[in-house]
């Protein structure tokens, strides 16, 4: 009698856009739950779980941390949407643009990127200050930082700065069983 083949594992990705990586640190705070998770998922793309540089095809679930602030973030966000069944806005930066979005207030709300670059590289520099310009190497900033759902359709929102490990666990555990988590109440929803 042949043994039953193990059920196919879910393909999980975690993505780091314009954020501080605090949401990923909170993900790592799942501690021993990560062992349970590893039995149910293959981590196919993650700054803390793999060394894969190209976002793969046929991803089941992606936790996307961070706002969309530069052209690399934008390109990756579009790939994530194209290649992923369920996209999760992971943390306040992805959900609201949060702290990265504060630069949207500069330059009278017109071009916050220009304002932060000039401040950082010209106004505060010594006499040799110059704006960074390296096409194809240093990704250009977008004029405005956007929450993920203003760039691609998002399937689930997991707010918090960062979302606690408990909140992350409560959100992804039902997904492992093919169910949607109930995102209600202060334990699951609070910003900040």
């Amino acid at each position, binding site marked *: 009698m042949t043994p039953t083949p193990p059920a196919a594992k879910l393909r999980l990705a975690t993505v780091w856009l314009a954020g501080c990586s605090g949401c990923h640190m909170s993900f790592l705070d799942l501690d021993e739950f990560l062992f349970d998770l590893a039995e149910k998922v293959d981590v196919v793309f993650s700054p803390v779980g793999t060394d894969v540089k190209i976002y793969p095809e046929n991803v089941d679930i992606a936790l996307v941390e961070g706002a969309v602030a530069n052209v690399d973030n934008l390109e990756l966000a579009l790939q994530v949407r194209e290649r992923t069944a369920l996209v999760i806005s992971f943390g306040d930066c992805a959900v*609201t643009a*949060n702290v990265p*979005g*504060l630069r949207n*207030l500069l330059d009278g709300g017109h071009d916050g990127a220009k304002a932060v670059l000039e401040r950082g590289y010209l106004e505060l520099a010594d006499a040799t200050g110059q704006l960074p310009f390296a096409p194809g190497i240093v990704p250009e900033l977008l004029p405005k930082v956007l929450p993920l*759902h203003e760039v691609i359709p*998002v399937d689930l*929102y997991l707010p918090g*700065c960062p979302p606690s490990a408990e909140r992350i666990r409560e959100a992804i555990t039902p997904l492992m069983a093919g169910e949607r988590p109930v995102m209600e109440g202060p334990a699951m929803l609070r910003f*900040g």
Partner: protein
Amino acid sequence: MAVVTLNVNGQDVAVPAGASLLEATRAAAADVPTLCHLDGLNPVSSCRLCLVEVEGSTKLLPACSTAAAEGMVVHTHTPRLREYRRMTVELFFAEGNHVCAVCVANTHCELQDMAVTVGMDHSRFPYQYPQRSVDASHPQFTLDHNRCILCTRCVRVCDEIEGAHVWDIGSRGGHCHIVAGLDEPWGQVQACTSCGKCVEVCPTGALFRNTDTTAEKQPDASLPALLRSARDQHRWHNQ
């Protein structure tokens, strides 16, 4: 005492004549959300969160400033009201510059709590990033217009309880903002007694003590009710 009886969510309740619909909904334990309302201050129905449906009325009515009337049939949590409340809170977040993570009122903010209450997991409205200022001219307190939701609790507590009337609303429409004195820097307004009541009742981090930093504001919004009952009825609820 004259009493009116009305029906809230299928439950008959009796409240004193002159009571508001909000008091009637509380008598029915209906838990209608509010932001601008504060016990002890006169209602202004500016936040629109307490809108309820009253049978026979084609309009939604603000519970805080509508008198309970005999025979009213009130619904407080219909799908339409729930949806409007969530939209209202999303609009509050979208039309100001609210960044909970770095706010002085983080974990003690009524707007942050209200987002949870109405089930807001994100804003469906794009953030506006309005250009607003911060008035740090007062030696003890700061007013950050970025976090103001124009509930006017500060205006009312200063006028109705402290009697100083430092605050008002200036401008029109989307340009409305809180002004001190005759639109002066707060620190130059001689009428201000520096009592701090405006800071205590502010539901967000718009008004705060200079000594408080991120997540350190711990306001006491029960002050107006306490002072009013002490003055009017000589009863101190806190003793």
